[in-house]
């Protein structure tokens, strides 16, 4: 048997995590080994980036029989789109670890973080729908644990809520996957759950396809979350530990978007086009709705939770805009937003670590006390609002262009909302960080060396991608073109 590079990337954290759990090592050793593991994984994915060829085909394929009687294969592969997200995940996680370094959590925390990494990379790289479902569900367990054990406030209720909520979505998806598998069997006489096979099904009626489409969409909509499936978000974000919020906002939400593009679009292109207006509408509505909700928040973590949801709604609008601008912009924004939001939640976690949970009005005067933290905060905010020179600018511009092309009114509304969003981000920055108050923030310390490296490493990538996006993104263009062809085919046919 041979283990491919992708398998190694997926399972190395899992193996290390089990060994760490069984061995009687203390928290520090666990943390250091966990960090080293993520760095190794990062280097491996870097080698994938450099070996990646400029085509729209799946590369680094791995294909082994798993449950042969039902045609289920252990099938992995990476194309431009998943490669860019893989790079994102493997870069973000070690940088995030540098920020979580000082937490006093037990070693289970770090072991769970490693398990989550296995889950997300596995779901990202699998090309067999049952295998995908397998990883998709598995990544839930460590999240369940990390919020339930290491969270704050009403953590148990929150973790049960998110778990039950997402499992409900996943089970709808499971029925749809099984239904597709059976349809393939009925049409071709062999079992298969390979994505490349299931797209060939022709015997399903329009109604069946629509139902299946929504079966998949519910699972992804809950994970992203798309309005009105967002009700788990607030409690979960405010009660999870920093690492948990970081993973949920920066990585898992993006996997929901990824799932739509990877599975829903090729499997149900007609329904994708047919229902696109509703999802663009939901996206733009979510952009506004979550934006307003963010304005109302007193707690800084809750505010970022809503603003993150607002941006995710924007990304959703982008992928359903059915044109090259919107699609590419969404792919850009997935990366840009993951980095900026991830960075922001880490910084907020830092504030929380020193000062406890505080409202926005309870902060202030941070700029003087912790100048480096202020700079980092500003950098991430600028990226979120899309200042030219950051990668946020490129992506938001592209999505707005895409939405303009889709519909002028939608374009105008979203452009205006993004502007408003920018203004309230600065308002927050002014209130929470800059303004002079009498609040006692003497506990606060500025970033230490590891954190400086982590956050400014992230910042360097953000700026590099903003100034010279081509170098980062030329590898995904063939893939995006390929997806657009899928949409165009539907356009021509209908």
């Amino acid at each position, binding site marked *: 048997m041979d283990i491919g590079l992708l398998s190694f990337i997926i399972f190395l954290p899992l193996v290390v995590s089990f060994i760490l759990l069984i061995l009687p090592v203390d928290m520090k050793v666990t943390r250091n080994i966990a960090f080293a593991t993520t760095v190794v994984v990062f280097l491996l994915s870097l080698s994938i980036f450099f070996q990646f060829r400029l085509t729209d085909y799946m590369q680094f394929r791995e294909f082994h*029989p798993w449950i042969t009687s039902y045609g289920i294969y252990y099938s992995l592969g990476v194309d431009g789109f998943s490669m860019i997200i893989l790079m994102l995940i493997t870069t973000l996680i070690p940088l995030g670890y540098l920020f979580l370094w000082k937490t006093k959590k037990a070693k289970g925390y770090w072991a769970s973080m490693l398990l989550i990494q296995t889950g997300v990379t596995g779901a990202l790289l699998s090309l067999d729908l049952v295998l995908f479902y397998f990883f998709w*569900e598995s990544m839930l367990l460590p999240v*369940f644990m990390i919020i339930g*054990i290491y969270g704050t406030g009403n953590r148990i209720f929150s973790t*049960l809520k998110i778990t039950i909520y997402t*499992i409900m979505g996943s*089970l709808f998806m499971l029925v749809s996957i*099984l239904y597709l598998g*059976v349809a393939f069997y009925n049409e071709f006489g062999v079992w298969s759950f390979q994505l490349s096979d299931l797209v060939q099904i022709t015997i399903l009626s329009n109604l069946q396809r629509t139902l299946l489409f929504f079966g998949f969409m519910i699972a992804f909509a809950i994970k992203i979350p798309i309005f009105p499936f967002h009700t788990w978000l607030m409690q979960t974000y405010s009660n999870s530990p920093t690492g948990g919020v970081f993973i949920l906002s920066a990585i898992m939400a993006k996997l929901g978007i990824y799932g739509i593009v990877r599975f829903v679009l090729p499997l149900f292109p007609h329904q994708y086009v047919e229902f696109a207006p509703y999802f663009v509408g939901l996206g733009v509505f979510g952009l506004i709705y979550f934006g307003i909700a963010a304005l109302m928040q007193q707690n800084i973590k809750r505010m970022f939770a809503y603003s993150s949801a607002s941006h995710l709604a924007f990304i959703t609008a982008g992928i359903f805009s059915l044109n090259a601008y919107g699609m590419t912009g969404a792919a850009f924004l997935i990366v840009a937003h993951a980095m900026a939001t991830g960075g922001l939640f880490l910084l907020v976690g830092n504030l929380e670590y020193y000062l406890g949970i505080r409202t926005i009005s309870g902060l202030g005067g941070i700029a003087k006390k912790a100048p480096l933290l202020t700079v980092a905060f500003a950098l991430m905010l600028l990226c979120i609002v899309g200042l030219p020179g950051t990668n946020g600018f490129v992506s938001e511009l592209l999505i707005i262009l895409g939405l303009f092309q889709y519909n002028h009114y939608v374009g105008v509304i979203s452009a205006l909302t993004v502007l408003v969003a920018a203004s309230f981000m600065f308002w927050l920055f002014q209130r929470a960080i800059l303004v002079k108050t009498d609040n006692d923030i003497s506990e606060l310390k500025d970033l230490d060396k590891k954190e400086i490296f982590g956050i400014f490493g992230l910042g360097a990538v953000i700026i590099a991608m903003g100034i010279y996006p081509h170098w980062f993104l030329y590898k995904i263009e063939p893939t995006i073109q390929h997806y657009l062809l899928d949409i165009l085919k539907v356009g021509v046919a209908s």
Partner: protein
Amino acid sequence: MKYDDIIYLLPLISVGTGAVVLMLLSPIKSFNISKLSWVTLFFLILSFIANALNFGKVYSVAPFAHLFSSMFVIDTFSGYFTSIILAGGIVTVLVGTHYFDKSDMLRGEIFSLLLFSVFGMILLVETKELFSSFIALEIASISIYILVGFQKNYTRRVEGSFRYLILGSMASIMFLLGIVLIYAGAKSTNIIEISSYLALHKSQDMTLVITGGMLILITFLFKIAAFPFQNWSMDVYDGAPLPITAFMASTFKVAIFGFILRFILVDFHELKNIWSDILFYVAILTMLYGSFLAVFQTSLKRMLAASSIVHTGYLLIAFVSINSIGESAATSIIFYLIAYFLSSMGAFGMLSYIASDDHLRVTYEDFRGFSHIRPYMAAMMSIFMLSLAGIPSTIGFIGKFYIFVGAIESGYTLLAVIGILATFISVYYYFKLIALMYFYPSSEMTNVPPLKGIPPLIIAVMAVLIIWGGVGNTLISYFPGIDFLIDTAKFAYQSLFIG
């Protein structure tokens, strides 16, 4: 008369001899519980080995055909179920001895009774004739009635036992009446001959046989605790000593399903369609009602009992789809039984080990903060819960996967959707335990037995098997994975149609 047939009867002979030997040994003072348990294990393992001799081939023999007039058949199918039943017996003895040892009222006779019930169960999966199946069912049931109420100074035990006895006897009477009616119509009690009778006659000519068939169906539904005959199981499972509950919930259930499967796979033409229509609704109601019961339980034992009803519902889905996709539905049932056997045996076994020192009602609350006292036990318990909930990376997921695929394949998408709904509800009551174990600081749970000795080892082996059954693949050669289990289940199915 061919005397080499005796090799096929060895498992049965070994268990039967063991039962008698233990009965004679139990009054002797110097044979305490632990010595008797080793004797029991000897006979069970002997029987297991004898049964394993025929493993890996498709065969079907009727030993001493004219002596028993072909009432019994020993084939891959029965061999497969016999090994599960024997494994169940072995695990019950290994895990339960600790419990039996600690409780004053349990004496040596329990091992004899346990072997008698194993004997009955093995006979049950080998029979293809109605009267002998009745006898086998009664041997197994009566032993279990006694086992449930053995600790006669606990009122709950006696109440459970008595309830089970009365209701079980009612079900047996139905069964007998059903047999009589079928015999009156078809002039035979051999299921193959009944099948050929049904093939040759129109439905209006055989009211008797169909009525008899319905009565037999009622007995089945009672024995597997399907809706609307499920209420006994809650009280009986709750009243019985924990190792006995484990034995009933996993092993006895497997044996009954094995028998029903053999019965239902014989083509009963007209009758089969009627059964299938009824089972469709029974499956839905069983799943929903079981979920409803399980959500509101505070005692873990009762929750597992209720969830066992839900699992019966999942299995009934496959029984409904057996009409159109015989082989894969039967395979999925056999696979699911293995999955359920491992998970529930593990969960009940763990409970019985934990409860053995203080005999408290083990409630959810008792497990508050359990992971801080016994991290490995909590991890194993979580694995069992995840497998029962059907979360991927456990064997429970693969089992559900087959059943739901089968339901969709045979056109019963509604059943699959309701199955998914029940699975979704089940997440609540299984995850509640995991949440309690991990998310709270430890409470004073002083009497937890330590993680050493044989019972935890056996439970750990089951946890590993559950994980392996969920992820095992052909990457590691020479080591049986999921494919192996499915192939074996297929052989078992095929052996029903030879000879």
